């Protein structure tokens, strides 16, 4: 039962990782680079939600506020930085994304300081299912995540802009000559990436504490899950994130709390060695 409870906690951690990995895999698949600034978009979402929650007292509005803040930050990063670097070397984009992450973190540090913030959420008695304890907040967070993921997949698969995104991911030149405006697709992509990152950041912030470094500290598990799921595969990213989250929680009684992140690194290495295309990856040939 102890392990089941851990697995449940890991599942919620895994939602955070899965959503963050989703943001990474979308950028990797469509804009073709590893965005090391993703973690700090999570942070932007968490602070945005925190500020909205303080101002309005409503958790729903807080979620919307956080999503809006991170989406705008993400779009700004594209317009100001990544748009100018399209077609440049891997190093240029990687290093620029590190720079974007630093800039966002510095902004948070200056605006909110370095003290830890928590969401002031009233505690409620947890529900007990077959001896498993689950709080109302956790249930709400799970439902929200499921909704967010469902919406994202609906956008990707059932709307014109989603089809265009997948077309650009498949073959950018072919998409362009077929009359797809790459600029519009990119704008939509970065808004979506910001929104998905924000949901991850808000859940993380509600479950733990909000600090300027919270997102950066998650970067390694996010990349590990994106690679594990198969680069460019949104479904794979979510699944891999959940698996990784559960594995991390289950490992803590054996290796201790601090080695959670190291476990993500080990998973990443293992996947790269054994099955570099990940669970569902097909688009990217790694080696």
């Amino acid at each position: 039962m102890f392990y089941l409870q851990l697995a449940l906690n890991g599942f919620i951690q895994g939602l955070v990782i899965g959503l963050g990995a989703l943001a990474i895999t979308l950028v990797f698949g469509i804009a073709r680079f590893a965005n090391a600034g993703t973690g700090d978009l999570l942070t932007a979402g968490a602070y945005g939600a925190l500020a909205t929650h303080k101002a309005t007292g409503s958790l729903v509005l807080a979620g919307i506020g956080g999503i809006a803040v991170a989406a705008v930050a993400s779009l700004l990063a594209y317009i100001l930085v990544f748009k100018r670097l399209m077609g440049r070397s891997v190093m240029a984009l990687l290093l620029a994304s590190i720079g974007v992450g630093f800039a966002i973190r510095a902004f948070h540090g200056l605006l909110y300081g370095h003290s830890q913030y928590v969401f002031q959420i009233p505690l409620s008695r947890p529900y007990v299912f077959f001896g498993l304890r689950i709080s109302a907040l956790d249930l709400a967070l799970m439902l929200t995540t499921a909704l967010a993921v469902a919406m994202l997949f609906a956008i990707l698969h059932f709307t014109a802009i989603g089809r265009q995104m997948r077309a650009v991911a498949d073959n950018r030149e072919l998409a362009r000559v077929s009359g797809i405006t790459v600029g519009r697709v990119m704008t939509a992509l970065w808004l979506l990436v910001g929104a998905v990152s924000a949901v991850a950041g808000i859940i993380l912030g509600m479950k733990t504490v909000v600090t300027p470094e919270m997102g950066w500290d998650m970067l390694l598990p996010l990349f590990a899950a994106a690679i594990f799921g198969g680069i460019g595969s949104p479904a794979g990213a979510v699944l891999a994130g959940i698996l990784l989250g559960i594995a991390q929680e289950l490992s803590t009684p054996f290796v201790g709390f601090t080695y959670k992140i190291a476990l993500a690194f080990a998973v990443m290495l293992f996947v790269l060695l054994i099955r570099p295309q990940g669970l569902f990856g097909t688009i990217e040939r790694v080696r």
Partner: protein
Amino acid sequence: MEGYLVAIGIVVLINVLLALGLTLQYGRTGLINFGHVGFFAIGAYTSALLALQGVPLVISFVAAGAFAAVSAWPVGMVSLRLRDDYFAIVTLGFSETVRIVISSEKWLTNGMQGIPGLPRLYEGIGGGLPAQLAVLVTLALVVIASATMIQRITNSPFGRVIEAIRDNEEAVTALGKNPASFKLRVLAVGAGLAGVAGAFYAHYITFIVPDQFGPIVTFYVWMAIIIGGVGRISGTLVGTAILMLFLEGSRFIRDLIPAIPEVEMASIRLGVIGIALILFVTYRPQGLMGDYTQR
């Protein structure tokens, strides 16, 4: 004042040594190593732990470089066949894992409390300015030797292959060379330099904690070589000097305007580094001293 200048000189040269390793790895070979600080940390802790066991510093310094180089071996073995961006992520993960290990393994490294009271170089001279000067001269000699070594490597047949790998890896493969084996050796040499730099750092500061080895150190070095000019020894020197001017300068600003607390200054520093990285990568990727004929 002399003491301050010597101190700055030592810190600059330690960073030059770090930057030289990256110059060989990225500038000459095209390896995007985002985990440089991991090898720096391994060198610092290796030398520190050996010195505390009574091992002479000469041996502990050599061991620091050797152990850092050897630790690059498994990292390279698993990741060098991968694409450039995967390599970058794996090395970043490696350096974070190193930091987690040295923070957690208290029996070996004393964890987050760190290791205080490390012996300085040339303590026999009696400390103070003469000993500091001797450290500076030693460091300068090591830097000159390393720079010469990198130039010799680059001008050798081996060097032509690694530059070819940087410019067109497929062509090198087509010529029957195995790029991974060349990259592995370059990674190890660069890591060794970082390890020696770590040893100098540990025995100069005399107190090491895991927090000193965060990823920001790696990106300080990246910023130095990008500002100075990728692949150039002169660029390494100029870039590191500018970086130090900025880092030290930000301390002076705080002395002038004490109203800014240190945490805010750290944020400002982080932001300036981030924005400088973006601007240089976008508008001047070859750096100030860079090759003006190449992109």
